[in-house]
């Protein structure tokens, strides 16, 4: 009888030594975000080649789960954004267009891939911006869905766009409220693009806390602010001498620094 009692106990102990199975969460795909705020991409044809009819922006994705020995196709789909949705074939090449569909894959043995999004320079973009709300479509290869990171918004136009790094953190960013007329004035007067790259790489101003990087130099920002204010005073003086009003936005707000 004693053996009968001890045997189950031994069996229970032995069961603890059973080799664990390899954990497999399953495969999925996210948009890669270098910074938490990288949920929005903006582009304007106005900064590029004036004769260009299309432009490519790159959407970076990263996998969840194990590596694959084979390339894995990626499917994206457009969702309604509620803000002037771009029209496939008019404003961008559809995600399943034969010209790009072959590039929509994660290469074998890789966790990340850059997917081309080809924007088309339709004349309507001069009137305003359009939006693509893109989502990673769950497929048999990537069945997992992470709703927090499986979508990205692309806003583009053929007019000046407010850079994402144009922030309202006044103790870092001294250039005030955004306005397209003001933005164009800054570009024309300084010869700089005043786009996201300029803010980040030259001025050191970024959209995420602490809102500046190693390139930031408050003295240089202060210099540019004072320079622009002086140039605006001179510009307005010339306009007023010619009988024109001071520089204003479309809604009548005077441009100021």
């Amino acid at each position, binding site marked *: 009888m004693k053996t009968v009692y001890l045997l189950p106990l031994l069996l229970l102990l032995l069961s603890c030594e059973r080799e664990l199975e390899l954990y497999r969460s399953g495969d999925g795909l996210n948009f890669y975000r270098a910074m938490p705020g990288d949920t929005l991409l903006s582009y304007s044809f106005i900064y590029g080649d004036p004769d260009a009819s299309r432009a490519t922006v790159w959407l970076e994705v990263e996998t969840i789960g194990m590596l694959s020995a084979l390339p894995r196709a990626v499917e994206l789909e457009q969702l309604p954004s509620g803000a002037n949705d771009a029209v496939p074939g008019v404003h961008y090449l559809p995600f399943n267009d034969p010209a790009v569909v072959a590039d929509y894959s994660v290469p074998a043995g890789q966790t990340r891939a850059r997917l081309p999004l080809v924007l088309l320079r339709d004349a309507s973009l001069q009137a305003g911006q359009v939006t693509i709300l893109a989502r990673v479509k769950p497929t048999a290869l990537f069945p997992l869905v992470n709703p927090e990171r499986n979508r990205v918004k692309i806003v583009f136009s053929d007019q000046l766009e407010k850079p994402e790094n144009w922030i309202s953190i006044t103790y870092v960013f*001294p250039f005030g409220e955004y306005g397209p007329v003001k933005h164009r004035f800054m570009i024309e007067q300084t010869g700089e693009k005043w786009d996201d790259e300029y803010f980040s790489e030259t001025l*050191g101003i970024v959209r995420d806390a*602490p809102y500046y990087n190693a390139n*930031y130099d*408050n*003295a*240089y920002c*202060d210099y540019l602010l004072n320079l622009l204010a002086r140039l605006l005073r001179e510009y307005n003086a010339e306009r007023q001498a010619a009988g024109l009003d001071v520089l204003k936005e479309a809604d009548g707000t005077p441009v100021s620094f």
Partner: protein
Amino acid sequence: MKTFTLLTCALLLVSCYRDKGNYDYTPVSDIEISGLEESYILVTGVDTLRISPLVNTTYPESDLEYRWVLAKSTNSGNTVSDKFTYDTIREQRDLAFPVTEPPGVYYLYCRVNNPRNGYAAFARTTLEIGTLYNRGHYILKETADGNSELDLLLEDGRLLPDILQSTRGATIPGAPRSLGMLYAKSLVDPNSWEKVRNHCLGVVTRAGQAVVYRAFDMYRAFDHQTLFFDEPADVPYKFYTSAYSCEYLSSAGLFSEHNASIMTVGNTAGKYSYPETDVAGGSDHWAYSVNMWGALYWDESNHRLVHGNANGMANELISDDFPMPGATHDCLFAGTYGPDVIHALFRDNSTGEYLLYTITIAFMRGAPAVTAVKSLPDPGRWANAALKASNETSANIVYFVHENRLFYYDVANDAEHAIDIPTLPDGEITHVAHRHFNFTDAPAFDYFSIATFANGQYTLQAYQMIGGIPNGEPVLVARGAGKVKQVQYLAPNASYSNFFFRGRAYSR
């Protein structure tokens, strides 16, 4: 039977919890380390740091291990950051460490350990490692060919002559105008290309040169062409340190590293932007007020008094109670007395009247206000003397030199008195000043400083004072080639990056 079986199993399990611990504890002795100063100021390549720590413990000496670890801030320069690299420099009780480290601020840890039980204790001190150029009395002088050069009088009395010629290969064109100490001046380190803050010297000459040298290696961080983002078109007057910033005064106005429109986050590359206000203009007539955390100066272009506050913002001084000097006035002098009073002397060219303005700053960081204007019916000798200097702390007097004789003007009693210094060498008096520095973490001094020039050589002497009058034998003497213009003291302490120091009372 089932109950019996479970009970047996439970008893077996309970037996596993039997306490086999050893509670026969032995008290661990403490280790107390003393004998380390709070900080050490050392010259690289020259000094050897020797420390014999006192260790109070009941452990036998044979059971103790010693380790000295040097922690270097990863932020190069004079400031201590919170990121360090560590290096063991000695594993013996007594430290004899020949200092060869690059200039900077370090922490030195002494660790005493008993390997038998692993008990250890630490003590920490700060090392401020510099070069010979880090500390001392800088002498701005005019060379025989009319240019500007620096000598350095060290604490031990040695004189390092012609520093610019020996380190940079050339003097600065133009006769000397002013010298200012720039504590924690922003600049780009030429080796790491990082934005750092180092103590610097700012030299201005009559030829329009404005040059900033990093003190510890005489790196020429800026000249007049590189000091701004734009091409300069100004006449430089003076560099100085105020509470928040290293300032630069010129005919274009007051420039500040601290930008009031943007919070000072991150480091700047040290170039100046624009004056913080549209109030342009300046001159050599300048006085710093501790209470104001800024300076008051005469704008000789627009004939007005201007005050620059702690944020480097310049504003015209106006008064409801007194007429302010204007277009017909010339400023003859401005000087500080105590933390809250500035004297400024004017001549009204339309009437020939001499007016002594008293400007008071009633509270810390307060705005200045004219509190008295005294007409001087007899301007005496002092008003038009070429050399004038306030006693800034202990006596309400202004030193001046008339026909190569030293006098003082008693401001309160409107009287002039000669000062005889028997030990003053013959020669042209080229410099008088009150030089003072009084902080607990640096050698304090309170000197009357005077220099004479004869046969191409200067003699600079500093005296202790009684009631503002130089007394006794000189406590500092330096002799060298050239003609002394100004003397400024540089202290290397890292805490001088702190605005609590930078705005305080020391001669500028």
